[in-house]
């Protein structure tokens, strides 16, 4: 479902070349719950941006559902983001002037879904995160946890093939964080593919598998059901 082949991303900062991603090879299957873990500056944001089709790689190939992403135009990428990827950000990224309901509805409007169906899907998604009763509230009338749940509902409503979460619990207290994590687990149980980016080992170990990233290079770890590390794998191809 997700295939990174020798992905490199190079930035030029002043006179220096920074290799944010250095020949990364990743393979994520349909229905997997994978965490990507690494300290800040390790290249995990770059990884997430490329995986989320927000940015393109300097070299290498990225296949999402078999589609060669680097060959698409910005217009086509917007469509792919809209239909295939559900983003959940650390800072929630809800539109502050819109209510919870309108925020969840927005990707459906961009998909061109009819009004009656939009309404039904918004209701379904908000009920799933238990916030339908607060649908008329704007983000600044809600707590961080509630905002993040709205953001998850927004991602869910679009019925994406990949949930891409960037430090979703980073701005939340641990109790709320747990709540959010349980929603992800529930989503995964329903067969959704989830990629979760974090710097926190205790969050990362809740996934079935972790991909560790360090200085732009990736390596793989697998966990058993109790969150115990099963076998560290070698760097490079996973």
């Amino acid at each position: 479902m997700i295939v990174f082949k020798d992905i490199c991303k190079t930035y030029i900062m002043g006179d220096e070349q920074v290799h944010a991603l250095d020949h990364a090879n990743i393979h994520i299957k349909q229905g997997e719950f994978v965490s990507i873990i690494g300290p800040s500056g390790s290249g995990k944001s770059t990884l997430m941006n490329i995986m989320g089709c927000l940015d393109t790689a300097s070299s290498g190939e990225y296949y999402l559902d078999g589609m060669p992403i680097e060959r698409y135009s910005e217009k086509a990428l917007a469509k792919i983001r809209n239909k295939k990827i559900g983003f959940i950000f650390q800072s929630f990224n809800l539109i502050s002037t819109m209510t919870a309901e309108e925020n969840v509805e927005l990707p459906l409007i961009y998909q061109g879904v009819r009004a009656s169906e939009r309404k039904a899907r918004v209701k379904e998604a908000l009920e799933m995160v238990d916030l339908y009763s607060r649908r008329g509230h704007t983000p600044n009338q809600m707590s961080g946890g509630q905002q993040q749940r709205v953001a998850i509902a927004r991602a869910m409503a679009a019925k994406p093939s990949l949930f891409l979460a960037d430090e979703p619990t980073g701005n939340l207290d641990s109790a709320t964080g747990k709540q959010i994590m349980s929603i992800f687990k529930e989503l995964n149980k329903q067969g959704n593919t989830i990629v979760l980016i974090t710097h926190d080992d205790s969050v990362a170990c809740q996934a079935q598998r972790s991909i560790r990233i360090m200085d732009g290079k990736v390596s793989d770890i697998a966990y058993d059901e109790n969150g115990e590390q099963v076998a560290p794998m070698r760097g490079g191809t996973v």
Partner: protein
Amino acid sequence: MFIQSIKMALKSIMSNKMRSFLTMLGVIIGVFSLVVLVSLVTGATGSITDSINELGTDQIDVDISDVRGVPISLEELRTDIASIESVKAVAPQTYGVGEVTSMTKSVRAVAIGTTPELAEIQGIKLEAGRFFMNPDLDNNTNVIVVSHELAVDVVGRSDCVGETVKLGGRSFTIIGVMEKQSNSMMMLMMGTPYRAYMPYTTLVRLIPGKDMSVWSFSVSAVDDLDQAEKDIQEYMIRRFPGDEEGYSIYNESQISDQMGKITGILSILLGGIAGISLLVGGIGIMNIMLVSVTERTREIGIRKAIGARPSVIMLQFLIEAIVLSVMGCLIGIGFSWLAMQLINMIGKVSFGLSPVVVIVAVLFSMGVGVVFGLYPAKKASAMKPIDALRFN
């Protein structure tokens, strides 16, 4: 998607009411001045044109000012024009100015000496009495037909047929009173609403040595006006050979045309000035849209991340600019309407909003919205989602 964009635009305009209003103010003032100025000119033109038409567009005036003092005689003219098919009738007009007095009051009036034909040529309508007739002419009777205003201001009432007034030391019997005229043009030409028509024979006696210098011709058919003018011109050339300075020919449609040209130029000029202020309003919109795009960079990033195509973002901001300017335009038209009502009330006129200028204003402000919204919208749509998302 289009309806959604309009909803979003309205929402973002409403979320910042004060700023939106100030932005619109430029357009409001521009549209207001455009609509009011052009409507005023159009309204004034309309009433002037109406006045001119009331004077009779089938009338041709010839001013004969022969320096040798051999003016043409009425009999001669009558005989001569009988053979000109396009001309129906002719009447002389001789002017004098004098005090018209009753027992109690006195006004300075224009006395016009003429023949009964003038009533027909100029379409003079009476509210009481009659116009004088040929016997009055032959006997140079002291009878006058007065304007409504003269009757009211000198005698004190308009049904004053049979009353006597004094003019130039003689007593005149009022035999007719003209209808009250709203005709501002006649007033403009005569300089006074006080007019008294009398047989030219009487006037010539009143002012010895007075020549008949102005002749009014009526044409057989309105369509023949040009032909009649040509025929009269030819006749004058024959009658006054080698003396082209000795006469001049006017017709009302020429005045009408001239007036139309002047007001047309005035409309364009005033409209142009107002249009410039609309453009300035447009620049205001562009300015605020640019600020808005920068302020909402993060929102643009979010929208792009969740799948808004560049064209959708572009449309959103473009529509916002158009909605701003069209809303300003509509408010401006509303204010113009109020202003026109006020002008009508105070000036006792009935000028309406010119529909043409209203349509022009709406289209123009839409155009302003598009032109000045395009650059900010393009800027928003061209943002890379990743950069926009990082913006704080």
